[in-house]
């Protein structure tokens, strides 16, 4: 008797989720990659914190292009401590108007403060934060700030990754021959998944030239590699 009471108490806890429950439908932002959207029940959460475990330079922004540029276009996108200076021609090509973009560069401890301020201001669609370390408590604060203010916080982390953060979604990106391989480490209200491969081309290539050359000479031309 006491045991069942205890269990039903536990069942009411918001963080307890049982596999047979279906998740309450919440607003999603489609990534535009069908297979990923299927695993994520429609896309990234439209409000909340998403951690992306990824090294810089593998297409970690290109994969979320649909999410970053596809919704709430009148609101701001704030880049906090990006791994380099954000280049305007790229922003233009990516589809973000320059007037909607702000970049903040500061110390790591101030970066979290800035992210929270940006989320709380209610004027941001998306805060892109590159964090060095992130504790459970800090992640929780950002998650709350983001979900209460209907904003998305994409946090990129390359190393010193702490497991089991209280975030809406935790993803790991690994480069793949054809693009990216994505692992859903954790998501609220649904199952995790491994090795979702997404074809991705985010840089121009010499393919057209190579094709033209093969057509002309009937033999493949190898481009020199450098090292």
């Amino acid at each position, binding site marked *: 008797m006491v045991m069942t009471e205890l269990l039903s108490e536990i069942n009411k806890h918001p963080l307890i989720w049982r596999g047979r429950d279906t998740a309450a439908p919440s607003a999603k932002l489609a990534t535009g990659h069908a297979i990923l959207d299927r695993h994520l029940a429609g896309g990234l959460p439209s409000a909340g914190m998403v951690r992306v475990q990824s090294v810089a330079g593998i297409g970690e922004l290109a994969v979320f292009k649909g999410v970053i540029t596809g919704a709430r276009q*009148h609101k701001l996108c704030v880049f906090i401590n990006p791994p380099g200076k954000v280049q*305007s*021609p790229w922003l233009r090509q990516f589809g973000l108007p320059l007037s909607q973009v702000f970049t903040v560069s500061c110390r790591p401890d101030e970066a979290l403060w800035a992210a929270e301020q940006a989320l709380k201001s209610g004027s941001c669609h998306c805060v892109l934060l590159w964090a060095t370390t992130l504790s459970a408590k800090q992640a929780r604060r950002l998650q709350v700030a983001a979900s209460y203010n209907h904003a998305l916080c994409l946090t990129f982390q390359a190393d010193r990754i702490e497991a089991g953060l209280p975030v809406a979604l935790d993803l790991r990106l690994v480069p793949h021959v054809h693009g990216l391989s994505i692992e859903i480490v954790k998501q609220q209200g649904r199952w995790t998944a491994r090795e979702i491969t997404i074809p991705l081309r985010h*840089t121009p290539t*010499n393919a057209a030239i190579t094709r033209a050359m093969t057509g002309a000479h009937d033999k493949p031309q190898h481009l020199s590699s450098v090292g």
Partner: protein
Amino acid sequence: MLWVYIQFTRLTLDFLARTAGHPDHEPVVIYHPQNNTLVQCNDAALEAELKPGMGLAHAAALASNLQILNYSEDTERAHLQAIAARLYQVASDIVVFNPAALAVRLDNLSQYYGTLTAAWSTLTRELSPMGVTFSFGSGWSVECARVLAMANSNALNTDSQSIRSCLARCTVACLQLDNKQAASFSRVGIQTVKQLLALPLAELGQRFSNELIRYITAVRGETFPTHPLFRPGDTFQRRVDVGYEIDNTQHLQPYITGLLEELCVYLRLSNRCTSELSFTLYYRETDADTIQVRSAEPQFQVEQWRTLTELQLDTVQLSAPVISVGLEVKQLEALNPDSQDFFENRQQYFAHKQLISRLQARLGEQSVSQPHLANEHRVEKLSEPDDLPEPTSPSRWQPAFLLDPPLPLTTATQITFGPVRIHTGWWDKQSVKRDYFIAKSEDGRYLQVYRDHHQQWWVQGLYA
């Protein structure tokens, strides 16, 4: 109370340079025909040693290619109204002093922006896109701030100690006195504001008129005369002078978009919308033409109005070159409460300003920035602000992030794109000659690499 007084030193010239769209290299001066003096000189004119206050003959002797425009107080007033309307978006208490000065109350703004400095930087950020030159001063009353602005203090004094010491350094010439009052001061040997401040009020009362006493107590911050505050008008009316004669409706588009943007901010702030715009095209010789643009339902967004106006303009044949464009909106309608979108945007508009001020206040102005699109080929200067118009087709192979400074390439990579040779910049002694490639490293990262003229390889960017 804390007021800041902003004196615009060359309003007509600044607005002219902005509409012409480029920094001017020819000397241009504004000439006051009644007084036979120059009143405003642009940078090129100042370099040619022209000064405000000179006579026309003197000026013409110094610079042969001088361009002279007549001063008109009405034009300055109109420009000042436009500035006040723009500042009204971020400030509440604004006093307009025709023809070329504004006073803004800062202390009540500090509640919204955090600190007085943040409030002031919000104002300057609003002013800087207009490209206006100004001198300013801050003080405990409008009059006090004016004295400091006239003395070119150009510092934001927030505590009474520093205001007092700044004020003490000013001469009597900075005060707002008529000739008779100035003469009466020099008769009694008062040359600096410091001497004036030291005098007890009773002694001043014996010697000077009531009007002057009121002014002096206001400068000393003992009384606060009330000034009528700026309120945006009930109808919207703006006019821009285009920099050159335009005979093609397409070239009018940027000026019209500018007017529409101003209109939409005005509408958003006053919770109104409108269903009819009337544009007036002014010509040099013939009478002005009016173009009506109507919409089926009331609108408040720039994009909607811009498309409608574009369609309408396509059908218009210009009978003569246009020299200025006006926009007038007579009928403003109350907003239909169904359109929730309006309020969301409105709140977001202010939240945006507040966020930027807050971040800048704590992290410093340099830490928070907005990217620019430069008309450049050198990769490291692509996002630097410049005075040139934006390139129409920015290069499409740039990385998301630029590493500054570049790092030597140490890992093995495979080239996937390139080369792109950049050989430019001979004009400012930072010339570069590099071959750029996109390379994929062994761990799957896409890097922007280049080979310099010493055949060394560097990583300059990351493709995210």
